[in-house]
């Protein structure tokens, strides 16, 4: 096979690099346009997230087809003919003997002109204005559709799963769902200090969600019950936290009735940190620190949790059609606000904590001394 003269090889390789860059840019523009339009359809028709991911992986997989699609000789020969007007390079391969040697020398003489440098990006982007405009237009259309339908901008559709949305919807979804990042692979299977089970699977997450809801309801019911339940025995508080039905029972089971002997303070603190979540103020007992929206956070903010519960309460009173518009009825709001904040002021006089076994031992000793005294 006849080898290319070095100068000619360098010239063609530069043309090839420009062609590949051009194809890469074309693929980028068309991919952005296609994915934006597909995302519009996903948003409008609530397509499952898997189909969005499938569109992305399919588009990414097609890049080699763009790069290795058949090349035309024209993109190599037309720039060459602008420099080599005597077509010495093209004739070189047809010639033999002395003619070929002469043509080879001519090609080498063209060397400095063939070794063009710079301007590759400008050449590669020439004529790509329409695809770029199409990509930008598609992105604008996607943002328009997203803002009109979801009330927030969007890059990729996530299928409308619980961690999507904004405002109170986002808060409610996040406050009721334990983030997956908290289910660490190496988490101990033993219950933690509060007696909760480790979260290691979606089933466990469901159980956590049910527990969260039941704990929140318990705190609300207890708050509604007033102070009557307060001050009664506190020794069973620990027993409630290890209650299997309250800490990891099947999610399908109904929530247990509120324990009248449960101290309000304990329940309220659990509710304020997301129903059994580690207290963020203590630096995270599970090793997860920070609030959501701040880096690798995993713990719901108490403020967002408060807003969620308030919103739930408003919804329970006003129905699902509640809108923050002109017809919003604000009458129950002050009462709800008072009740909610009053729960933080609650206090309970709790007697000294005593272990049942110690108490029994003390009583036996006392009885023994009493018996001895009576014998004397």
């Amino acid at each position, binding site marked *: 096979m006849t080898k*290319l003269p070095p100068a000619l090889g360098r010239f063609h390789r530069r043309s090839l690099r420009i062609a590949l860059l051009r194809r890469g840019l074309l693929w980028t523009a068309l991919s952005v346009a296609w994915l934006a339009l597909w995302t519009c359809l996903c948003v409008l028709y609530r397509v499952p997230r898997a189909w969005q*991911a499938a569109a992305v*992986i399919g588009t990414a997989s097609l890049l080699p*087809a763009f790069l*290795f699609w*058949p090349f035309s*000789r*024209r993109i190599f020969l037309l720039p060459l003919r602008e420099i080599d007007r005597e077509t010495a390079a093209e004739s070189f391969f047809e010639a033999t003997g002395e003619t070929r040697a002469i043509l080879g020398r001519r090609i080498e003489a063209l060397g400095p002109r063939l070794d063009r440098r710079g301007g590759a990006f400008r050449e590669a982007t020439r004529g790509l204005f329409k695809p770029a405009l199409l990509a930008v237009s598609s992105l604008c259309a996607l943002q328009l559709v997203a803002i009109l339908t979801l009330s927030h901008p969007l890059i990729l559709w996530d299928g409308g799963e619980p961690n999507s949305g904004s405002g109170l919807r986002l808060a409610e979804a996040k406050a009721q769902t334990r983030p997956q990042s908290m289910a660490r692979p190496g988490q101990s299977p033993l219950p933690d200090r509060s007696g909760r089970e480790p979260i290691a699977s979606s089933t466990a997450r469901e159980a956590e969600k049910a527990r969260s809801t039941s704990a929140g309801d318990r705190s609300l019911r207890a708050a509604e019950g007033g102070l009557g339940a307060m001050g009664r025995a506190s020794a069973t508080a620990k027993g409630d936290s290890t209650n299997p039905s309250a800490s990891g029972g099947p999610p399908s089971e109904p929530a247990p009735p509120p324990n009248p002997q449960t101290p309000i303070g304990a329940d309220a603190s659990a509710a304020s940190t997301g129903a059994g979540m580690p207290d963020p103020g203590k630096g995270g007992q599970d090793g997860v620190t920070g609030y959501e929206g701040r880096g690798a956070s995993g713990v719901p903010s108490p403020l967002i949790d408060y807003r969620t519960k308030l919103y739930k309460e408003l919804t329970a009173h006003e129905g699902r059609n509640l809108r923050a518009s002109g017809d919003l009825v604000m009458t129950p709001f002050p009462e709800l606000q008072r009740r909610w904040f009053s729960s933080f002021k609650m206090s309970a006089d709790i007697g000294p904590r005593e272990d049942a076994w110690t108490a029994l031992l003390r009583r036996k000793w006392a009885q023994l001394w009493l018996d001895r005294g009576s014998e004397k």
Partner: protein
Amino acid sequence: MRRTPIVAALRDPLLVAAAGLGLWILLVLLDRWVAGLAMGLAPGIAFAAVAGPVFVEEFVKFAAIVAIRLAENRIASALARKDDPGSVDTREDLPRWPGLALSAIVVFAATENISYMVRFPAPDTWLRLLWSLPVHLAGAMALILALWRGGIARTLLALLFALALHLGANLIASGNLAPAILAAGILMALGASFAFGMIWLEQLIIEGIHIGRKHEDRP
């Protein structure tokens, strides 16, 4: 220069897309049948269930590449540019069938990735972009370059390479995938596809510019 009619411009992409999709449908049906057959003939041997579909897949892909080569050489080249007499003699253009055949294989791989993502929308399915796609790409490039250069021994060697690469990847993926093996497999597949890509661009494109179809005509 005359503008290429839109129908003529879309003809090759549509044919390639149809070929890739058809290949995927055919192989889905064949893989199920062959895997069932292998498990029936050699029950308890997991290797048979993995190797059977791989052999079928590579042979069908090889047949598809040969079919595209024959079709492009005999039919498409006669029709493709009869109405586009440019300043360059297009009858001596760069061979089109390698690019078309590779694109059909890429469409097949993309369809396979889409089907996996729809069925298993897990984060590790994204690894198919680094794992499965390069395996298909490297195997197809080896076969196409061997057919383009000619020679039975070279073609058989390329077929063996494609089979070994695909079988190795599937055997690793069907077992417990240790991170080190996964990383080594990804690097090997990416390296092979990159190396074949460079050979493709250098020999098939750069050296083919001034020689055109004469590459294929030589003994």
